[in-house]
């Protein structure tokens, strides 16, 4: 009897372990293959029988990427757009969320709902008039055209996330400072701000991920090769007839790397805040 239930338990554990292994292959397999491809000779990849293990590795794809393509330019453009978007979004969200949390005024609930709704708003509905307006003001091919649009998608959701994050920050310190006659802005920047850094970090990460990967607006607003961001520039690697899969893989990896590294360091804070926000 006892042996039988022991066997049953062991069998259960075995099934779970096998399922987790299968899942790991499904989740990690594609990442493994693109990573491996980026370090393999382009000839081997299209030879009909590429090695599936890490053999004959080379850096030629990355050298090609930086020397023979405009990848470095795309990288620079993406960095600029991402940094500016994040900076502006975090500033707008911080002030907005602080206002929603600490002040009472009419229409507050409505505004909070609006902030969340913008996150689900279909970008495709906006793109035609935005393109028309940007065209009129000759902002096509200008990175700022992307930044102002990205901020509109990042800042409201960030403010919403921050607002729920602010729930956990006690009011006492600020009240004490107010009694002492400190100015409103000073309270916000010198007392409130330091307490909110984990929240700010996660909304910054949200903006970074969004602007680093955004494709639709970027491919529409940027036409000159020297202005393109990474997703747009890389997508052109596929439009040539004889695709160099080695450099495509290298480009894919090099684009994901900065975000992956950043996330490796800050990811836990992000997961904690986002899941808490959603469950509330």
């Amino acid at each position, binding site marked *: 009897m006892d042996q039988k239930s022991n066997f049953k338990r062991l069998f259960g554990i075995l099934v779970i372990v096998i399922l987790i292994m299968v899942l790991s292959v499904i989740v990690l397999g594609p990442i493994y293959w693109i990573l491996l491809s980026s370090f393999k000779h382009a000839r081997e990849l299209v030879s*009909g029988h590429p090695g599936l293990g890490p053999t004959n590795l080379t850096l030629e794809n990355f050298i090609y990427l930086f020397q023979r393509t405009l990848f470095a330019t795309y990288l620079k453009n993406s960095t600029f757009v991402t940094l500016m978007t994040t900076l502006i979004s975090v500033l707008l969200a911080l002030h907005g969320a602080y206002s929603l949390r600490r002040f*009472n005024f009419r229409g507050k609930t409505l505004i909070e709902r609006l902030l969340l709704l913008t996150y689900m708003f279909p970008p495709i*509905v906006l793109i*035609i008039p935005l393109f028309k307006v940007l065209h009129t003001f000759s902002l096509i091919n200008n990175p700022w055209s992307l930044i102002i649009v990205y901020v*509109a998608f990042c800042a409201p959701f960030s403010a919403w996330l921050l607002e729920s994050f602010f729930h956990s920050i006690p009011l006492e310190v600020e009240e004490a400072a107010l009694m002492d006659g400190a100015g409103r802005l000073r309270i916000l920047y010198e007392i409130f701000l330091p307490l909110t850094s984990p929240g700010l970090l996660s909304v910054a990460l949200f903006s970074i991920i969004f602007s680093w990967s955004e494709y639709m607006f970027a491919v529409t607003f940027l036409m000159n090769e020297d202005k393109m961001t990474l997703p747009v520039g890389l997508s052109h690697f596929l439009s040539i007839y004889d695709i160099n899969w080695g450099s495509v893989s290298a480009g894919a990896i090099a*684009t994901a790397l900065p975000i*992956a590294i950043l996330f490796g360091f800050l990811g836990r804070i992000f997961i904690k805040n986002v899941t808490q926000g959603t469950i509330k």
Partner: protein
Amino acid sequence: MTDIKLNKRNQKAFRFPDELFGAALLLPLLVWILAIMGYPLIATVWLSLTNQTVPASPAVFIGIENYKRILSEPDFLNALKNSINWTIGNTIVQVLLGYTVALLLNYPLRRSRFAQTMSIMPWVIPTITMALTWRWMLDATNGVLGYILRSLHLVQQAPNLLGSLGTSMPTLIVLNSWRWFPFLVVIILAALQNIPQEEYDAATLDGASFIRQFFDISFPYLTPTLLVIGLLGTLLAFNVFDLIYLITRGGPVTSTTTLPILVYKTAFEANRMGIASAYAVLTFIVMALFAAIYIYGGGITRWFKYLFGREASQEHL
């Protein structure tokens, strides 16, 4: 509870003269939203009533001609059908995967941060990276998937999953779900961890089976979270443009042309902005309907409760 208390004190401490200051802090954000989202929304409606072609050309008001035209052509209905298949397909695949994996991970990896970080990784990876990866793995001549299948003698010829009419849409749904289901796992895991262990212990004492415990304890607790995530996920899936456009461009033929793809191609490839705007307005309406079903389907919760005959879990629903 504490929040309500704080809010009341909050009212006392920060009173009227500061209302203006509060509004001033919020104003830039609101202006930004109105300029970049509010104005274009209205402008799209206006453009949909004109014969606008390229942006520089003059637009002449033509009433509802565009709508008459697109509703009499098959393109819109085809894209609508694709969008519905895409959205529902994604929701089903992701919820099933997310649920299964979360329950699986809940036991061995209950508190593993590594598992959490790993499972959110696919979402962090830029779409372009994944699009290039899929194009490469599923490439008809040199793709590794076909290579593995051939090596194992499962197929004679590598299947062209993305290039065939029948398989392009299901394949894209699987690829998109690969990306999003880990996110669901993380959220379901977090929700699972809020369920008091005593409920399971009591059920085990009563001799309830694992499956019974799932439906009687886990499921009712998870339902509210799943509904919220379901809404978010459905709308986000509906909006997906980049992955589809980068992988199939809406093809082969129009088999993966969802509504966002149709709007985009009509506006920027066919240069018919008036008609594209009419598509966009209809897309917006379809999406609002999706959202309304969820929001006013608060009845859904009650329906689930009825379905699983739960009275005891009332307070969680």
